């Protein structure tokens, strides 16, 4: 009998639209232009993540499906260039808490692969592992995940429809604040960023099952499956987990000649912050990315999920990044 992993809960998103695009890692023009349009349309972004390889940064962001018609008007020009891939009817499954366990990620992805449920991306917040897949497959995906994970007795997956008795709970209008209120900013140094690309089908292989089997922990996990079914993955780990994680990833990549040269390892800093009800406040991502651009920060990758924002920058750039962000963020006293 296989042991199941204990979860605190599962949340399912409403219907989302993904917008994916790529640009040179030296530029953030496409990203900032689109974020500006999203802010102008007063739209919030539940998830945004970026991975980088070979000088190209791959951005994937999503908005609520009901907001997309408004964005389509605001950003007509940007969305029609063909440089951005719009994927309708997507959704997310949020598993919490992840306790930074790499093994949870491995088991969940394995369960999805076995159930033949394609996943579009993965990202993590302070507490949660978020899997992006087709909206219509969310229930099947939960069923697959529950073959390897266990929920508390009194928990059923939380859905976006909120009810108070028979009445919908009041939801608030999205709002904008002149400065982004946050709980504080954290800079972690001496982390190893491992990035790799591989055909998504390799997720089913024997070597992959070993990822996280020695109870390795991650600090941040990001991944995107591109249109050509190539998966771009990124892991940030502390030094003590470096060797065992690298050994497994090299073994996975060695299984397929298409993975040759698709691996990178470097020391980085991670800047993180977290704020209340980010999901109801629009314009946050735009101000953050503009501040980084103005400060000349070379962003390697990022993950904005739920109410946390993680920014991966070069070794030694963490403090400077935090200073740039202090221009747009505030910790109320």
């Amino acid at each position, binding site marked *: 009998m296989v042991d199941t992993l204990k979860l*605190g*809960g599962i*949340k399912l998103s409403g219907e989302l639209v993904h917008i994916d695009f790529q640009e040179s890692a030296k530029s953030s023009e496409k990203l900032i232009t689109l974020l500006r349009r999203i802010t102008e349309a007063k739209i919030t972004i539940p998830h945004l993540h970026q991975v980088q390889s070979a000088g190209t940064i791959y951005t994937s962001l999503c908005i609520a499906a009901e907001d997309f018609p408004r964005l389509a008007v605001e950003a007509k020009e940007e969305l029609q260039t063909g440089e951005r891939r719009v994927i309708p009817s997507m959704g997310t499954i*949020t598993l*919490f*808490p992840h306790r930074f366990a790499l093994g949870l990620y491995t088991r969940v992805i394995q369960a999805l692969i076995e159930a033949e449920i394609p996943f579009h991306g993965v990202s993590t*917040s*302070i*507490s*949660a592992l978020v899997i992006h897949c087709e909206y219509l497959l969310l229930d099947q995906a939960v069923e697959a995940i529950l073959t390897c994970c266990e929920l*508390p007795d*009194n*928990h059923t997956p*939380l859905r976006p429809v*909120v*009810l*108070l008795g028979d009445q919908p*709970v*009041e939801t*608030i*209008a999205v*709002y904008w*604040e002149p400065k982004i*209120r*946050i*709980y504080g900013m954290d800079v972690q140094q001496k982390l190893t960023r491992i990035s790799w690309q591989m055909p998504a089908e390799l997720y089913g292989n024997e070597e992959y099952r070993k990822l996280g089997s020695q109870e390795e922990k991650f600090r941040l996990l990001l991944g995107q499956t591109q249109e050509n079914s190539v998966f771009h993955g990124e892991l940030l780990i502390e030094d003590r987990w470096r060797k065992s994680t690298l050994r497994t990833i090299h073994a996975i990549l060695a299984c397929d000649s298409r993975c040759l040269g698709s691996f990178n390892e470097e020391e980085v800093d991670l800047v993180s912050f*977290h*704020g*209340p*009800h980010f999901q*109801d406040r629009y314009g946050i991502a735009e101000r953050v990315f503009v501040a980084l651009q103005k400060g000349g920060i070379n962003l390697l990758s990022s993950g904005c999920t*739920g*109410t*946390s924002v993680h920014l991966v920058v070069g070794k030694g750039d963490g403090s400077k990044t935090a200073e740039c962000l202090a221009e747009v963020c505030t*910790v*109320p*006293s």
Partner: protein
Amino acid sequence: MSDKKLILVVDDDTDLVEMISMKLESENFQVAKAYDGVEAFEKIKEEKPALIILDVMMPRKDGYVLCEELKNSDDYKDIVVVLLTAVSDAVSSTNYTHMGGKTTLADDYVPKPIDLDKLMEIVKDNL
């Protein structure tokens, strides 16, 4: 049996639940977690916490309703409730404001974004 006091943290923001829980554990409290009002009530019945850190705006049952139920119940009225109020008072289209929170029967109120050290002080003062 542990002599650590049990605190129940209730918020649908899972990241915040984790942050507060880590801080409470570092201060030697025992922590239980719930992610909406219905789940919280089940945990309260099972575990009888000494104090509840309770968000106001949550799915299924919000913090106002849960707080009122607890404070009107002979079994649970003595459990200390610290309410986390979230939405800026500048937003006129909601009842989930700090001022709104103050109209409830909660024992104490903390506006978000919370200062974790301040929250620990409030927890200790109320136990």
